[in-house]
């Protein structure tokens, strides 16, 4: 099947590649509040690693800890296994591109790019001027060397900032929201350019953004951060398809989140109805059944409906996914352990997986509003008093019936009824 190759992640550093930047239990506190709270991370050499999260989640602080602008309150930051926690930024061999680019206004573009070469010889034994020229060409701004930074457009400033950061040949490139000041179309073009520069140099890159679309589009791996903690670290596709938590599911892309309780199995795995007064009580029977296509599904009571959610035997390493992801992994259903009747479960279904007049998991819903987005129309529905979003090719109105394939439902929380989490 073609889909296996198309769905495989792009080539990226595998688990055998050495670690370039490592966070070991890093905490950064400002007074009482912890901006970064006990974070463990490992960025591999040559990797494009993106830290994404809502504003105030601590992602910029994480980048500043890597750059050396901040010192951790607790824990260690390591570069290639060496503790750099007390090393000042000028001794770290990092290239930094900050949100506003921070070009030195009293220096020309060329002097800006060459500034770092005052402190270290240009890599490759070339002259300073050659190095400046090479980098301006790399960012597609040749002939700009004598210009005044103030005379450049936002996108040009950003590229000069990248050239300046790369000039001394740093080990790690750090980018803090480099696109936030640019308009949408320019952003899309520049992120592709940043990605291709990163590929061509093979430089370890840590990229901080609040824009989940940006994170998904350029990264080898993405760390989703919330309240100073890492919610999930995985390749973009895994983050999108197999969010590790409800937060990730709702933060990365649009999503419909359903909360429910595992229903008592209508049929046992052997196909025998669990007779009342039978040997196994309903609470102990596994509610896994086979649907009409012969696939394993679990019935989940959500409000007044019972919806079928696919079950593939559970995947215990879901939350700690850091390694290679196969197509099968990317399709994992997210159950942790065996579902039991009465278990609390939260699952999500992407808007594009909700389809009108689908036979399974039928929900009767009223159309609230529709947003025409060009390629698609985002339709807001009300089902049983809650909001549901679906993307449709044509506008909808009135009352519709929508459904979804049980295999498109991904479980993000699964816990025993007594409240003890079963997900760890």
């Amino acid at each position: 099947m073609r889909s296996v190759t198309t769905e495989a992640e792009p080539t990226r550093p595998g688990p055998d590649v050495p670690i370039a930047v490592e966070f070991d239990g890093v905490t950064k506190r400002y007074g009482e509040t912890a901006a970064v709270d006990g974070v463990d991370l490992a960025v591999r050499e040559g990797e494009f690693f993106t830290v994404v999260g809502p504003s105030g989640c601590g992602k910029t602080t994480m980048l500043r800890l890597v750059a050396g602008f901040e010192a951790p309150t607790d824990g260690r930051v390591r570069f290639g296994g060496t503790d750099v926690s007390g090393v000042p930024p000028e001794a770290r061999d990092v290239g930094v591109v900050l949100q506003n680019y921070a070009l030195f206004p009293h220096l020309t573009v060329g002097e800006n790019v060459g500034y770092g070469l005052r402190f270290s010889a240009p890599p490759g034994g070339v002259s300073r001027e050659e190095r400046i020229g090479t980098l301006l060409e790399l960012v597609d701004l040749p002939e700009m060397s004598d210009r005044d930074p103030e005379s450049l457009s936002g996108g040009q400033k950003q590229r000069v900032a990248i050239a300046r950061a790369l000039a001394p040949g740093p080990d790690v490139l750090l980018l803090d929201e480099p696109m936030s000041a640019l308009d949408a179309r320019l952003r899309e073009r520049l992120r592709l350019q940043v990605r291709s520069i990163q590929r061509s140099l093979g430089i370890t890159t840590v990229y901080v953004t609040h824009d989940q679309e940006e994170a998904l589009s350029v990264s080898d791996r993405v760390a989703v951060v919330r309240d100073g903690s890492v919610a999930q670290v995985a390749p973009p596709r895994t983050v999108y398809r197999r969010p590790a938590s409800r937060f990730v599911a709702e933060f990365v892309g649009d999503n419909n989140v359903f909360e429910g309780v595992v229903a008592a199995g209508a049929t046992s795995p052997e196909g025998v109805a669990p007779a009342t007064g039978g040997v196994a009580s309903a609470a102990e029977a596994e509610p896994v059944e086979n649907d009409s296509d012969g696939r394993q599904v679990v019935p989940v009571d959500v409000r007044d409906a019972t919806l079928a959610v696919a079950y593939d035997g559970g995947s215990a390493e879901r939350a700690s996914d850091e390694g290679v992801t196969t197509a099968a992994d990317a399709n994992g259903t997210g159950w942790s352990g065996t579902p039991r009747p009465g278990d609390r479960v939260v699952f999500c279904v992407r808007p594009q997986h909700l389809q009108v007049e689908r036979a399974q998991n039928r929900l009767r819903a009223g159309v609230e509003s529709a947003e025409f987005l060009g390629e698609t129309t985002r339709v807001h529905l009300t089902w049983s008093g809650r909001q549901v979003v679906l993307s449709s090719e044509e506008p909808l109105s009135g009352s519709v019936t929508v459904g979804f394939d049980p295999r498109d439902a991904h479980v993000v929380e699964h816990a025993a009824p007594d409240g003890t989490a079963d997900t760890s």
Partner: protein
Amino acid sequence: MSDTSRRLRDRVERRALTALTAATVAVLVVVFYYPVGTVLVEAVVVDGRLTLAVFADLLRDPFYLGEFARLFTGEGPVAVARAVAAPDRRLGIVGFTAYQAVLSTIVSVALGLPAAYVLARFEFPGRRTLRSVTILPFVLPSIMVAVGFVATFGRNGTLNAVLSAIGGPRVDLMFSLEAILIAHAFYNAPLVARVTTAAWESVDASAVETARSLGAGPLRAFLDVVAPQLYPAVLTSAALTFVFTFGTFPIVLALGGFELATVEVFVYRLARDLQYAEAAALALVELVIALGVLFAYLRYEAATAVSSRRARPLPRKLLWPDAWTPRALAERAGIVTYAGFAAVVFFAPIASMVLASVTTADGSLTLDHYRFLLTRQQTGAAFQVRPWPAVRNSVLFAGASAMVALPMGVVVAVITTRASRGRSLVGAVAMAPFAVSGIVVGLGLLRGLVFGVEVAGWRIAVAGSAAIVAAHAVAGYPFVVRTVAPGLASLDASLVESARALGASRARALFDIELPLVWPGVVAGAAFAVAISMGEFTATVVLATGTDAYTMPVAIERFIGRRLGPATAMGVVLLIVTGVSFLVIERLGGEVRDY
């Protein structure tokens, strides 16, 4: 460059800022805190024993505290309040000092606010120049200004000459509270105008427009939107005015005599009479009051600090309006009246001084006063103050003290704007010289360092001239901080971060990035430091008495005699030397790119 030398350079650079900070602290301790401490200690240590007796006597003495002294002799606050409210109250020295400081502050604000209104809200040729000129009175030597005031308002001054020419009555403003208040306004009204103008210009027009669109009339919009943004500036300048005028010395000495003495004048007098304990106790009372006001102000400033943002300023009105509506006419008439009054206060003293230096008592032109300077230079006795050494000393001291004040001011500016820890402590410690009596600093330096101290068996003494340079540097560097810090604070921290990530040490980032970007502020700081040094009188007169390290302001004071002429001639020399120094600094400051 070889690896070893680079590593060595790295190590030196990395420590450079720390070393400069340590040096700044060391200078402050040696030439400020230690000398001041030795003086103040005398207030509580008598014959080697700790005692509060000197203090207690001083606080109970109505001569110093007036009716308030009764608080310390055991009377109830109600009785004291009644006595203070009574018409025949006694204020005492401290009370009078505070009283004249409050009045001076009111006069300065009243005179400064209209200027701020005109400078911030009107467009006219020469507006920028006028705005820059408001800095000048602040750096004019106070003794020279005092001479200018005598030349203007004295019995034979310009004012009386004008009045008698038009047949009016003669007035004698000398040695009156009014003369002191006007002189203080001369110094501080431009400060009020400057600070308020800056705040007014940073009011965002869109805020006013929003208020107007929501239904507020022009006056309501002003009261609700503009005025609240001006209060902090007005309060800032008022607090500084109070502190400055509370510690006033040369103005009162020259214009008030000992009849209208302030605390500082009395400290000087007590010190001159070798009553050090009482002088120190009095200086301590002064310090506590000044620091209290300064501290309250700093707290207030911290609470109301607004991050600098790029605002669209309010559109300026033309001074010569397109249409002469009654309102426009009334407004312009007010401005003209104010301008006339301001001219008398600000320009008359300087003009009168220049005029007096080339006229005789009966009004005919003469060069006698300058000839006096030349004669004194050629034939003056060794103990007499001669003009040329005064000029030479002034220039040397100014240059040397600027060299010390600049790095100190820059370091303190960096710490107070950038450091995350201890910035407010450093700020307070470093700004204390603003509030401490110049007499006490001079006295401390004289007795502590010039007479020598014994440290571990070594006798350490510095020359009088070195002590003067130190005192001038300490007096001048807060101005460097004030001119450099705002620029540094408005620089994006990410500029320094980017430089450091590119391999620059903290000190290199300061020299390569920050200082070039705030260069106009650095140059202005240097000009300030030089001007402060050239005009400094209080500490210098203490340190230079009986030596040949006297400066131009000291010479002016010595030349004030039966005739004002020689003093005014010396004042003109001081004016010219200070002006030339300003120009030279501006030139040396070089091509300042405007950002």
